[in-house]
């Protein structure tokens, strides 16, 4: 092992429980032991995933949040006796790994409940909600400290919890913790005075207007959280360790409005001064560990940082707050492991909390221990497979039903949380397979084929592997994407897969003699709109980003035709890193209004472009492109915009090579335009069966 990681592999204590190392797997929705939104039951897929993480060497595993009362079915978590009977032998097996497991118990979502359209319809209508309440009570699921607006749905307001409901919930926290302890669980984590969840809504003055014992002073606003830990100690024993998921600062400017990492602003949520007092109150109440980050659902990119956020974005705040308490503290949020080890070694931090890296590479801890960190597949923080709650202006949560049922899958690693569906089965008939195209789809296909025992050969028309992903990863802040490309190239080398560079294949028939099967992964080309006068003058993303025109000093004002993710990312790179003047023209009613693109990612882009005062024209289009100008048509009228270039951001169209046939298969964007998840998952779907 590289000595720079050594501090990560030293033990520490939470209460009286010794954790074998400093690596904490953060809780991720979906990696639950007892089911997600359905009634609680022992979830075999989640249990298998968590056990594998323990075997890999994670010191403390926190399964996905478990609401203390089922959202569907409305049973209390302590009521299913069978579940605890199954949990006991599981914990015996789990403890053989040496890892510890704390179950995360949640007080609910409150106004952050990611309601879908049908849930919003129930929540807005008292009668419908009452009729549905034996199965799902949306108004209860969204209940909060006070009447506050839902994060996801317009015209949906949370109702305040009654004191009786709060105290009923507090008792069930204690009862559940007692049962968990009896089943062998090492501790619990309370979710959460963090991220704008229910207990956080009680804690934040601007979200809590109560005048009873749960509102007003900071002590009162934290009473719900403090009563929970006291009740757990009462029922499960004083020595049963209770952790708290905690956001040091809310980094929130107002309802649905977050703050940039470099922004000076007036805090709407919890500021540092209040946090310094809050952690002391929470420690004194009995919490034994603080698992920290920043943010709320209104500033979601702090708690679920996409690539646009800086590494270690919460570390400074977490280390500051640690000075005010004596209990150990972990920090989450784009944590760089070398930096984390340095901070732990220097005594400024107690543990590092890592979430989605655990989904993308199931052996990352082992690889570090064995000095093979270069082999770790990096998380690119896309949230496409694990956490794709998406929203645009006027919509509720746009997540598909399949994704709602299965969170915490991984765009880049299909076997995660679906290990029976996606698995490498050695082939009985090894074949020679031509893979046309060396983008992500081609490389993933080749790797799956090779691991199964086939002999793939990649044909790449350029002199470098990567395809369109070379363009996508060219932006300044896309270091994780660049790491992923490096990883793919290394894997292709490591598996000794033949690549024929600078070889463009136009005619598949020429390959049929040499190869048994052909996998076409030729990707896509930019969409064209010839009806726009002068469209041929547009610049594509490859010219702008990969060919480096973004750095051209002559290029100052650039109009993006289309407000999708690529346009917004390029515009952000342009204004933030190159101090240029992007303008976005979008036909729809919002930027990045795409299903499956997480709100944490899209809200950062929307907030960042607003902060940098990038002109955005919605419901608009470009009607003409000339030399040094374009005509922009908005609902208010048409005007001439001087610009140095117009970038074609209206999307892509599939560009397959050759005809379909019995031994010809297609993978990736050459089938239908998607994202990395659709590319990688289809590569597996196809190549598992060749």
């Amino acid at each position: 092992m590289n000595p720079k990681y050594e501090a990560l592999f030293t033990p520490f204590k939470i209460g009286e429980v010794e954790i074998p190392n400093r690596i904490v797997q953060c809780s991720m929705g979906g990696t639950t032991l007892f089911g997600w939104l359905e009634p609680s039951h022992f979830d075999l897929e989640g249990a298998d995933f968590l056990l594998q993480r323990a075997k890999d060497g994670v010191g403390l595993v926190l399964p996905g949040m478990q609401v203390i009362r089922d959202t569907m079915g409305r049973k209390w978590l302590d009521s299913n006796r069978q579940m605890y009977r199954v949990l006991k032998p599981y914990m015996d097996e789990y403890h053989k790994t040496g890892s510890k497991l704390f179950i995360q118990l949640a007080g609910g979502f409150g106004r952050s409940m990611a309601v879908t359209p049908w849930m919003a319809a129930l929540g807005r209508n008292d009668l419908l909600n009452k009729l549905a309440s034996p199965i799902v009570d949306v108004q209860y699921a969204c209940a909060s400290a006070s009447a506050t607006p839902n994060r996801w749905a317009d015209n949906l307001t949370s109702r305040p919890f009654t004191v009786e409901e709060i105290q009923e919930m507090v008792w069930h926290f204690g009862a559940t913790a007692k049962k968990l302890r009896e089943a062998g669980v090492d501790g619990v984590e309370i979710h959460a005075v963090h991220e704008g969840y229910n207990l956080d809504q009680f804690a934040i003055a601007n979200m809590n207007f109560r005048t009873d014992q749960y509102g007003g002073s900071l002590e009162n606003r934290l009473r719900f959280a403090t009563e929970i830990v006291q009740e757990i100690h009462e029922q499960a024993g004083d020595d049963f360790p209770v952790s708290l998921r905690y956001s040091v600062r809310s980094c929130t400017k107002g309802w649905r409005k977050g703050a940039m990492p470099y922004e000076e602003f007036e805090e709407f949520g919890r500021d540092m001064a209040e946090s310094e007092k809050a952690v002391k109150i929470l420690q004194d109440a009995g919490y034994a560990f603080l698992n920290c980050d920043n943010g709320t659902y209104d500033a979601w990119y702090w708690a679920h940082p996409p690539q646009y956020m800086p590494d270690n974005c919460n570390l400074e705040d977490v280390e500051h707050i640690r000075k005010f308490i004596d209990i150990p503290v972990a920090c989450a949020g784009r944590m760089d492991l070398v930096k984390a080890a340095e901070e732990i070694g220097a005594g400024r931090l107690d543990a590092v909390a890592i979430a989605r890296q655990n989904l993308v590479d199931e052996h990352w801890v082992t690889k570090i221990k064995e000095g093979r960190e270069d082999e770790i597949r990096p998380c690119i923080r896309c949230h496409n497979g694990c956490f794709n709650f998406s929203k645009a202006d006027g919509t509720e949560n746009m997540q598909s039903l399949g994704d709602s049922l299965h969170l915490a899958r991984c765009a880049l690693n299909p076997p995660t949380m679906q290990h029976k569906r996606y698995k490498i089965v050695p082939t009985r008939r090894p074949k020679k397979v031509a893979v046309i195209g060396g983008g992500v789809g081609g490389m993933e296909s080749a790797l799956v084929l090779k691991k199964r025992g086939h002999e793939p050969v990649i044909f790449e028309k350029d002199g470098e592997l990567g395809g369109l992903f070379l363009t996508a990863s060219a932006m300044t802040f896309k270091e994780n994407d660049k790491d992923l490309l490096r990883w793919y190239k290394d894997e292709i080398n490591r598996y000794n897969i033949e690549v024929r560079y600078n070889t463009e294949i136009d005619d598949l028939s020429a390959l049929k003699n040499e190869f048994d099967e052909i996998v076409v992964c030729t990707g896509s080309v930019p969409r064209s709109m010839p009806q726009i006068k002068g469209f041929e003058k547009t610049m594509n993303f490859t010219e702008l980003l990969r060919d480096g025109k973004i750095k051209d000093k002559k290029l100052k004002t650039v109009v993006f035709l289309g407000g999708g993710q690529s346009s917004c990312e390029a515009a952000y790179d342009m204004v933030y890193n190159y101090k240029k003047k992007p303008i976005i023209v979008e036909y729809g009613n919002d930027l990045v209004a795409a299903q499956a693109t997480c709100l944490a990612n899209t809200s950062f882009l929307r907030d960042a472009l607003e902060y940098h005062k990038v002109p955005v024209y919605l419901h608009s289009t470009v009607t003409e492109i000339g030399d040094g100008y374009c005509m922009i048509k908005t609902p208010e009228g048409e005007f001439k915009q001087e610009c140095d270039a117009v970038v074609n951001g209206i999307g892509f169209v599939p560009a397959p090579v050759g005809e379909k046939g019995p031994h010809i298969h297609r993978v990736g964007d050459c089938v239908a335009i998607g994202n990395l998840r659709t590319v990688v998952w289809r590569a597996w779907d196809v190549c598992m069966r060749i």
Partner: protein
Amino acid sequence: MKLIKKLLGLVFFGGIAYGLSKLAEKDEVQETLFGILGEDTYLAILDKVRLVGDLLMWPIDFVRALLP
């Protein structure tokens, strides 16, 4: 008598459906279907089957969890 016939029919067809679903889980069967149907049709069917499977499992978990 009618009820018994219905029950027997249910058991018979249920058994066949169960057997087919178990058969479809086998990698050799999947490879064969993939070859016969072509990947587009196969994957389109697989996608729907998975969603139906998920939707069926969800209430089964639901009911199972509600049982004492």
